[in-house]
C-alpha cells in the first residue's frame, strides 16, 4: 500500500454521505458504557503504550492518520500527505478549524512539538518510530514537513492516535512532561472531552460540541467502567449494563457462552494494528536451547492447531513464519520450512539425534524449566500442553508461573530462564513490532519485550537495517523473505499462532468497527440503537 508516488487523500467522501439530517436525528445521543480491564495507569498515550490507555485516550486525542482494516491510511488530523520519491521528505497538510478542548487552535507547531519534544523523547516506541526524523518544518499553521535522515516506510504506519497522539504544545511546553496535569486529565482534539476519572470505578468522557468533523460525534457520553472480576464483567455484559468489552475483558470460556445469547455479538475484527503473536522465546546463551537444532525440533513437534482448537476455542491462526500473515498485504510474508503443516515427531527426533541430544535411561534428552506468561489461565493450559508435547521427543519441562514484575525481571533483566512462553504485538510494520525481538542492538538488559533471547547475528542485523530503510515495496519484500528464512533456520523465537482477540458487544451498539484501530479508535461515528 505504501508507494512513493505523490499520494493525495481526499476527505473521505463516504464519511460525509452518511450525514443526512434524517439519519442524524435517529443516530445521536445516549451514553455508551464499555468495560475496561485492567484500570489504566494514566491517560497519557504519549507516555505509555499500555492497552487500557489505548482504549480511552484515542477518544480524546487524535493522530495525524487513521487506518482501515488493511492498514491503508485514512485522513485524520492530516487531511492529506505527500512522500517525496526518495522518501526523505514527508509533507502533511493539516485539517483546518481544529481546536483543542480548551479552545486553542491546533496548528503545525503542535505537530512538531508532539513528535520532536514528546514522542521522540518520552514514548516507549516513539524513539524507534521517528528514529530518522531530524527536523520538522512548519512553513505555515497548516503544513508540517518531516525531514528524514533515511527513508522510513514504517513511520507512515505509526501515526494513529494510539501510536502517536498529537498533544497540546501550549499545555506541555516548559513543564515536566511526565508530571504534567494532562497525564491524568487529557486535553485533546478528539470527539470526546475528558470529564472525570474515579479511580477503581469509571472514566467519564462527554461529547465535544466543537468537534471539527461536522455532525459528529453521535454519542453524548462515553463511560469506561472498571470491573476487576472476570465473571462480574461477563454478568454486566449479559445484564446490558456494558455494551462492549475488548481484549481479555471477557474470558474465552464466557465468550463461547455469550455469543449464543440474543442481542450479544462477537467479532475478531479491529486488531490488525496490534497484530498479536503467541510465541516461545529460547535462551540462546544457556543449555539446553543454545543450539538451533533443538529449537527447530521443538517447532516441528508442537501441534499449533491443537492449541488453537482446544485452548483458545478456535480463535487463532497457525503461524507459518517469523512474521504474521497480516503483513502479506504489504508483501512482507513468506511461509518457511520449520513451521510444518502437521507436527513431525520423526523429523524432530532425527534433528535431536544428529545434534547429540542422546536420551538417558528414562528417555530424557534435555531438561528445562518453562516460564509461563502470567496473563491468565489459558497460558497455563498451553504450558501444560507443551510439557506433554515435548515429552514425546524426550524434552522434559517443568512449569513456572510467577507474577508479572518477577517474571519480566527474570526474563529481560536477569536472563535467568531457559524457555519462555509469551506473546508479542507485531504491530503494523515489522520494523516497529518485530525488529525489537531479534536485533543485536535490541539486547537491552532490564528493558522488557525486546531481545531477551540474546540472539545476535551480524548477517541478520544487516538485513534488518536494509529492510527498515528500503523505500521500494518489492525490494523490501525480498529482504524480508531472507529475514524470515534466516529466522526459520536459527529460530531464537518460535512463533506459535497469530492470536485472534475478540470483541464482545451488545448489538444495540452500531458502527464501532469503521476503523482498523478497533478498540483503539475514536468511536466518533459510533451510535446506540435506543
Amino acid at each position, binding site marked *: 500500500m505504501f508507494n512513493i508516488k505523490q499520494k493525495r487523500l481526499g476527505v473521505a467522501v463516504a464519511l460525509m454521505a452518511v450525514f443526512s439530517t434524517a439519519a442524524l436525528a435517529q443516530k445521536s445521543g445516549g451514553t455508551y458504557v464499555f468495560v475496561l480491564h485492567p484500570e489504566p495507569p494514566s491517560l497519557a498515550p504519549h507516555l505509555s503504550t*499500555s492497552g487500557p490507555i489505548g482504549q480511552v485516550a484515542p477518544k480524546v486525542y487524535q493522530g495525524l492518520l487513521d487506518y482501515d482494516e488493511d492498514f491503508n491510511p485514512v485522513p485524520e488530523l492530516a487531511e492529506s500527505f505527500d512522500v517525496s520519491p526518495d522518501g526523505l521528505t514527508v509533507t502533511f497538510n493539516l485539517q483546518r478549524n481544529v481546536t483543542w478542548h480548551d479552545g486553542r487552535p491546533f496548528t503545525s507547531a503542535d505537530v512538531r512539538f508532539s513528535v520532536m519534544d514528546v514522542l521522540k523523547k518520552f514514548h*516507549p516506541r516513539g524513539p524507534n518510530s521517528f528514529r530518522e526524523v531530524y527536523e520538522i518544518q512548519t512553513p505555515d499553521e497548516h503544513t508540517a514537513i518531516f525531514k528524514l535522515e533515511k527513508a522510513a516506510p514504517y513511520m507512515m504506519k505509526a501515526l494513529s492516535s494510539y501510536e502517536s497522539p498529537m498533544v497540546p504544545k501550549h499545555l506541555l511546553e516548559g513543564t515536566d512532561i511526565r508530571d504534567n496535569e494532562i497525564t*491524568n486529565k487529557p486535553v485533546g482534539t478528539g470527539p470526546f472531552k475528558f470529564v472525570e476519572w474515579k479511580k*477503581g470505578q469509571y472514566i467519564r468522557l462527554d461529547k465535544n460540541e466543537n468537534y471539527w468533523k461536522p455532525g459528529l460525534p453521535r454519542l453524548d457520553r462515553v463511560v469506561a467502567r472498571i470491573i*476487576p472480576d472476570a*465473571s462480574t464483567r461477563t*454478568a454486566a455484559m449479559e445484564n446490558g*449494563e456494558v455494551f462492549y468489552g475488548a481484549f481479555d475483558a471477557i474470558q474465552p470460556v464466557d465468550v463461547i457462552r455469550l455469543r449464543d445469547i440474543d442481542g450479544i455479538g462477537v467479532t475478531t475484527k479491529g486488531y490488525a494494528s496490534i497484530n498479536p503473536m503467541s510465541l516461545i522465546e529460547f535462551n540462546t546463551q544457556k543449555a539446553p536451547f543454545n543450539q538451533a537444532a533443538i529449537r527447530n525440533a521443538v517447532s516441528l513437534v508442537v501441534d499449533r492447531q491443537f492449541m488453537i482448537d482446544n485452548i483458545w476455542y478456535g480463535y487463532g491462526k497457525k503461524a507459518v513464519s517469523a512474521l504474521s500473515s497480516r503483513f502479506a498485504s504489504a508483501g512482507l510474508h513468506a511461509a518457511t520450512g520449520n513451521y510444518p503443516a502437521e507436527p513431525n515427531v520423526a523429523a524432530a527426533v532425527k534433528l535431536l539425534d544428529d545434534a547429540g541430544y542422546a536420551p538417558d535411561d528414562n528417555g530424557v534428552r534435555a531438561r528445562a524449566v518453562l516460564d509461563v506468561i502470567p496473563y491468565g489461565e489459558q497460558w497455563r493450559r498451553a504450558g501444560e500442553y507443551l510439557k506433554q508435547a515435548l515429552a514425546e521427543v524426550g524434552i522434559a519441562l517443568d512449569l513456572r508461573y510467577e507474577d508479572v*514484575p518477577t517474571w519480566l525481571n527474570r526474563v529481560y533483566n536477569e536472563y535467568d530462564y531457559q524457555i519462555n512462553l509469551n506473546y508479542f504485538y507485531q504491530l503494523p510494520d515489522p520494523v516497529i513490532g518485530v525488529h525489537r525481538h531479534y536485533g543485536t542492538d535490541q539486547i537491552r538488559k532490564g528493558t522488557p519485550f*525486546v531481545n531477551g533471547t540474546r540472539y545476535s547475528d551480524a548477517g541478520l542485523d544487516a538485513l534488518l537495517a536494509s529492510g527498515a530503510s528500503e523505500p521500494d515495496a518489492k525490494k523490501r519484500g525480498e529482504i524480508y523473505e531472507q529475514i524470515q528464512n534466516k529466522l526459520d533456520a536459527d529460530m531464537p523465537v518460535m512463533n506459535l499462532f497469530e492470536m485472534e482477540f475478540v470483541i464482545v458487544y451488545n448489538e444495540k451498539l452500531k458502527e464501532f468497527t469503521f476503523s482498523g484501530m478497533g478498540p483503539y479508535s475514536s468511536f466518533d461515528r459510533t451510535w446506540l440503537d435506543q
Partner: protein
Amino acid sequence: MNQTVKRFRYAMKRLAQAVPIVLAIIVINFFLLHLAEGDAAVALAGEAGSATPEYMAQLRQKFGLDKPLPVQLGIYLKNVLVFDLGFSFRHNMPVAELVFDRFMPTLLLMVSTILIAVGFGVLLGLLAASGLNTWRDTFISVFALVTYATPLFWVGLMMIILFALNLGLFPTSGMENFAAFHEGWDRVKDIAHHLVMPTITLSLFYLALYTRLMRSSMLEQAGMDYVTTARAKGLTERRIVFGHILRNALLPVVTMAGVQVGALIGGSVIVESVFAWPGLGMLAFEALFSRDLNLLLGIFLLSALLVIAINLVVDIIYSFLDPRIEVG
C-alpha cells in the same frame, strides 16, 4: 479521680505507646516490600508492552528507585512526619488523595457489614442459646456452619446470577449507576441499592462467626453463680437474660469485632473484586502487582492506624460494658 478523666489519660498513654509501633510497622513494611523481585518501572513497562532503556532509566529516576535503599527509607520517613505519603508510581497522583478517595467506600462497606454481622450474629446466637437443643438451635447452628464454610467469591457470584441476572433486583456491580450519574438523594439511594449485595455477601461470613461465639458465650454465662443468685432473688427469666447474661456475654463478641475491623479492610479484596466495589483492599491488591510501594506503604500505614484506634475504642467500650474493668 473520676472515670472520664481516667479514660482520657488512658487514651493519651495508649496513643503515645502507638508511636514506636507505627514507626516499626513502616520500617518493617518498607524492607519487606523491597524483597519482592522487579520494581515499579518493570511493572509499568510490562503493562505498556514495550520500552527503551532510556525510558526505564527515566522512570527509575523519577520514582527515586535509583537511590540506595536506606536513603529511600529516610526520605519516606521524613515525608511521613509531615503527613506526606508520597506519590503513587502507577497512578501518578498523591497517595493521600488516592487512599482518601477509596477510604469512604471501604468505610461504607465495613461499617454496614459490621453492623449487620454483629447485629444479626448476636440475635441469632441469643435465639440459639435460649432454645438450646431445640430445632431452632439446630437450624441456626447448621446455617452458621454452612455460611462459614462457603467461599465468599462463590456466594457473591451466585448472588449476582440470582438477584441481578435472573430477578433483576439489583445491579451486578459497581457503586453507582455510571450511565445515569445521579445527584443528591437519588445518588444516596443509588449507592444504597448497589451496597446491598456486597454487604450481605461479606456479612454472611462474619455473621456465622458471631453467631457461634454469642451462643457459646451465652451458655457459659448462664451457668455462672450470679445467674443462680439472680434466679434465687426471684427475677424473671427475661430480666436475667437481658439484664445480666447478655451484658456479660457481649464482651467476647466486642473483642472479636475489634480485631476483625482490621482484617475486614484486607479481607474484603474478594468482595470488592467480585462486585467492583472501589475499596482499599482492591487498591492494595493492584498496588502489590504493580510494585507501587509508596501506595502500599500508605495503605498499610492507614490500616495500622485504624487497628490501633479501634483497639483503643474497644478497650474503652469494655469499661462501659463491665464496670469491674477499670482503665488506667
